[in-house]
Structures are given as C-alpha cells and as structure tokens.
C-alpha cells in the first residue's frame, strides 16, 4: 500500500531530482509560452463586433 504512493523514492540520487526539476522547468517555460502565444495573437474583429451588438441590444431593450 505505502510503496504505491507516488512520493519520490528517498533513495533516489539527488542528481536525478535535480534533473527532474530542470525538466519540469523546461516544460513550464514551454507551457507559459504556448499560452502567451495565443494571448499575444491579434483578437479577431468578430469578438468586438459581437460585444458591440450585445451592447446595442441592451441599449434598445432599455429597462
């Protein structure tokens, strides 16, 4: 039961842990980059058009 826990093996050499940490960092950098690539894309005009229409709808409806 206990041996099945996903905790790191205490006997694992620290070099392996360092390596895993570096690898995680490389993955993390890429992950942020992947996200930011989309954030930095130009927003299609469609978005603002839709928002403008929603705004106008509100203005017409009053309430």
């Amino acid at each position, binding site marked *: 039961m206990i041996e099945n826990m996903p905790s790191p093996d205490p006997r694992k050499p620290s070099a392996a842990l360092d390596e895993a940490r570096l690898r995680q960092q490389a993955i993390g950098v890429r992950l942020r980059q992947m996200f930011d690539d989309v954030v930095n*894309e130009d927003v299609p005009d*469609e978005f603002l058009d839709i*928002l403008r229409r929603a705004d106008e709808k509100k203005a017409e409806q*009053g309430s």
Partner: protein
Amino acid sequence: MSVETATRTSRDGADDVGFKRELVQLIPHLRAFARTLCGDATAADDLAQDAMVKAWDARASFQMGTNMKAWTFMILRNQFYSEKRRSWRQTQLDQEAAERTLVAVDDPEAPVALDELRQGLAMLPAEQREALILVGAGGFAYEEAAEICDCAVGTVKSRVSRARRALHAILDTGAYDRDGASAGDAMRAILADAERLSTAR
C-alpha cells in the same frame, strides 16, 4: 440620448463602460484558455465568444473590483463543460501508471517541442490539464484556480502536481502521438505495462 436614459444609466452606464473595457482586455486570455480546453482554434474562439457574451449578460452579478479574470474564466469553463456533455471523466488515463514510467532524458534542459507539449497535454485528464494551465500558464494562484474549477485548494494543488509529473512522463517516454496516427497507442502500451506491474505486486 434622452434625459431619462441618461439618468437611468448614469451609474449603470459608467459601470458598464468600465466592465466592457476590462472585458475587452481579457479577450486574449479567454481565447488562450479556450484554446487549451478545445484544442481546435475555431471551436475555441466560438467558446471564448460565448463566454464573453455570457459574461457581458451577467455583468450585473459581477462585483467590480473583484477578480474579473477569474470570474470570466469560470464562466468559460462552465460553458465548456455544459456543452461537452460527453463523459470526459471516463476518458481519463491512469495517472499514476503514467507517472511510474517516468524516465530520465539525455538533456533535461532541452527545449520541449510545442507539438509534443500540446499532445502531451491532450493526454492528461481534463481536470488536471485545466489546473496546470490555470496555475502554470494563466498566472492564477492556487486559490483562484480552485474558485474557477469549483473545488478545494488542496485538490488544485494535487491536480497540478500530478499533471506536472504525468506530463513529464508522457513527454519523456514519447507517449504522445508522433505522426498523427492513433494518439493513445503508445500511452496505452505504457499503461498496460504499468498495470501489469502494479497488479503483480
């Protein structure tokens, strides 16, 4: 604009203008989050647009000054899962099995290829993928991610850490789909191996 209209909307109108300005600034982030959920760019933009309109329609229930980014992400996420009625939970892979296959790579600092990362992410259980994206890429604190995903902070922490380990394992074993063929084959082989090992104990 009539006098009544001006009076009626004097406060609401000012709030709406501020809300809209903030919402417009969030569009790029909503698109990015949607892209990680949908994969397909067109479907993602549809989702982001739906979320944007839903946020706009629900603006009265938003408390100005609170975290609008987290609020809109929550709307987008709810929208995604309400559309996706398919049982995504059942398609989850055995995470621990994937983690047990973790192996070292020649150069841990070697850049991670974008396609591989995308495919690796696609193999993660949805709840782990979104937790990792929110915290690891979206810049949310665990507490905010927990709010967005409607779960406990500890749950988010555990999902993020499991996602990190699994992604590491998937990328380093090359279990992602290399040539556009059947994405899960390599992963299934790994999982079968791990399954055999774990039942043998």
